[in-house]
């Protein structure tokens, strides 16, 4: 049995849940494969922490798939258990640090969304350099971009930033599912044209 865990985190309204759904739908082709992962959404509110897990499970054979010791999986990712982490908000990346191990790939968006506590002057927002150096203490595989700016520049809107991030994921990490499977999920969904463009854009960053 092989597993591949992706943690996707960010804020309400950034399209985090959609990213998880796209990645999961891209994994429906094989019989010897399972996919799950829970979402934590903050009601209808904005700007709260949101996370979604994508857990791919590949069984060696049918016997393993039918074994009760092997075929039941938690909807969560354990500490140090993520093969990849995508974060659409820099500070939140540090909240996701618990999922990382020394081989994890980290992709994060460096556009900050300032929390209320910082707005009120009660705390300070960490510098990007601090965020990166903390991450580096765990893994060397860190990639960050101003994905908000890229999305605005190319699409005149922030809507595409989550799909751009998925493109980056495929470019930087060795994802055990076909890139074309993601593309066909995007092609069937809403806003297909822009999403496919955004995915390709991410692939080439």
């Amino acid at each position, binding site marked *: 049995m092989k597993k591949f865990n992706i943690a996707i985190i960010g804020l309400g309204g950034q399209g985090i849940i959609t990213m998880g759904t796209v990645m999961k739908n891209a994994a*429906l082709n094989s019989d010897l494969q399972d996919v799950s992962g829970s*979402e934590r959404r903050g*009601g209808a509110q904005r*700007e709260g922490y949101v996370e979604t897990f994508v857990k791919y499970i590949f069984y060696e054979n049918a016997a393993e798939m039918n074994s009760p010791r092997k075929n039941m999986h938690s909807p969560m990712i354990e500490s140090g258990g993520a093969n990849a982490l995508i974060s659409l908000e820099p500070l939140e990346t540090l909240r996701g*640090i618990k999922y990382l191990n020394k081989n994890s790939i980290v992709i994060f968006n460096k556009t900050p969304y300032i929390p209320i506590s910082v707005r009120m002057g009660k705390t300070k927002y960490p510098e*990007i350099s601090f965020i990166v150096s903390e991450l580096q203490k765990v893994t060397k595989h860190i990639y960050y971009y101003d994905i908000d700016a890229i999305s*605005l520049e190319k699409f005149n809107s922030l809507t595409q930033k989550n799909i751009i991030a998925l493109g980056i994921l495929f470019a930087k990490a060795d994802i055990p599912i076909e890139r074309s499977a993601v593309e066909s999920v995007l092609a069937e969904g809403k806003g297909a044209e822009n999403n496919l463009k955004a995915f390709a854009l991410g692939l080439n960053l």
Partner: protein
Amino acid sequence: MSKSNLFINGSEGDKAIVLGNEAIARGALEAGIGYASMYPGTPASEIIAVLDKNKKHVENLYTEFSLNEHISLHGAIGASWSGIRSLCAMKNVGLNVASEPAQFLAYTGVKAGLVLAIGSDPGAPSSSNEQDDRWYSLHNYMPIMEPSNIQEAKDFTKDAFDVSEEFSFGIVLMAPSRLCHNAGALRFGNIRDRKNIKGDFKKDPENYLNLFSLAVKNHAKYLERNELLKKYLIESKFNKTINDGSSKIGFISSGVIYAHLMEAFDILGVYDHKILKLGFSFPISNELIKRFFEGIEKVVIVEEAEGFLEFQIKKIAYETGFKGSIYGKEFFSRTGELTLDDVISGVSRFLEKPLPASFDFAVEKDKELSNKLPQRSGTFCIGCPHRATFYSILKAVGFSNTEEKERDVVIAGDIGCYTLGLLPPYNAMDFLTCMNAGLSIGQAISNFDKSKKVIALVGDSTFYHSGIPVLLNAVQNGANILYIILDNSWTAMTGHQKTPSTQKDIDGKPSANVLNLKDLIKSLGVSYVKSLDPNSVKRFSAQIKSALKEPGVKVLIAKRECVLQEIRRNKSMLKNEAKVAETGESLYEIQKSRCVKCNECFVELACPAIILKKDEDTGGDYYYIDPASCVKCGVCYEICPNSAIRKVEFDLKSEFKLKKGLSEVTV
């Protein structure tokens, strides 16, 4: 789910990504339900929402967003007695409201299968407590099924209807938020033929007229049925024992925690202990447990919350004369969500098995950082009328965040999106417990502490849920209180279900039976009632001030639709974002030269569309309205004491080209 047509048309062989909640709904559909209802509540809302959304394509399906859980469960009972399989869903605390029908259900029994799906919320990310509803079953005798994953969520729900009919109990299907909001692959089954779903109420006075000696008789009858069910559960497919190792340690678990446990074993590389998976966590058969105890010296019960399984199993151990030891809550916390991490650590401690190095390292790193990071809490959406309401209230009572004053009015909170008003920067609630506690507790406080004015808040959906008797009580007993109803026309927090206040659906269709809230309140005997737009903050604030001076019960209705729904309805506005950018549109802008950073808009109102930017020329910061997020509610424009905010013609595209958008927001 991406292919929503599969939800209704899928059959054996089909596979799709669905939410746990959707899997429950699909299971009910496969079982041939004709009735589905709920009062919306996170994490359970999607169970009925997905059925409601699809009902026009499903023959003979009635769905209802009931006004409260008590009504909803009664509806399901009525449907069952009419021979219709029925599904009722609610969040954990909903069962407090529906506890009365739940209490009677064992006495009267069901006709067609009835399933009550409960979304529990350990860790309380969306609730005001961590209540474990399983304890109710010790006295209402509702059997409880606990699916462990998405597939079981569907399969168990489907089977639950058969068990319900066979033993004449309503079955509780327990799903914590981790399962409700788990999204993963589901293999579909076939849907029962729906043509013959037709009601036929057959009188059954012995069971349905539940009083006097009949009630006593019914009491005995359900205890008997409970014993029959226990017997059935000894060898049913729902409870599974894994016994392929030589260890003398046995683990017992259920639901999502069982899934955590199996993964924990895999992560720790432990494969030889005996395991009992309880698909039914109530009732538990003595014989089942006795058989499991055979050859075992130590039993570990792995579960969330206060130990419902442990309570029952220790009793059974005593009754069956088990000589070994039983552990549980010594290793697994009673409070908060029991996460995969917690199960891994607990099992590792019990078995004295070392944790993987990467796990330890990550846990330490997280501990080290978590205190250093700024907290983040959710807030109102941009343009949300609740933000204006809280701003107005705080201004009316002279409270300010920038000046750190004590506020001398008591503000009673209640349940809904507006509950977020208790968070910074507003800090505008003094207590918050359950639905409609605000006015009732507030009434007593105003009675006993005459030195303080009391303002009680409530949303429209919460008011209709159970607030009418509370308001009537306040009037009848001569209370002195200001009651502000934040009427945004929707049950917004749970995904925008309609309320009696909803005027227009998001497709623009007017609702039938729209209620005139003001008239309703007048009819309850309130003479001081006014309805205002909270976004006119100055007017609203002045109104609150003068209402506070009046004696008796005063009601102000803060009437403005949820901004998300308004935007959805005016979709054209969004769809044409690109066009807007090209053609330009009037927007709100802060004039750098006039803004003195008084913080009225940035901290007091705290609209998230107002952000801090770095000034390229001076190196300082300035406040800026992000045109891509501002929804032009105009509230900041109204409140700026320095007239620094103006309406301008603004060309989005050139602005972005010029400045590369938000890239240089300072931190």
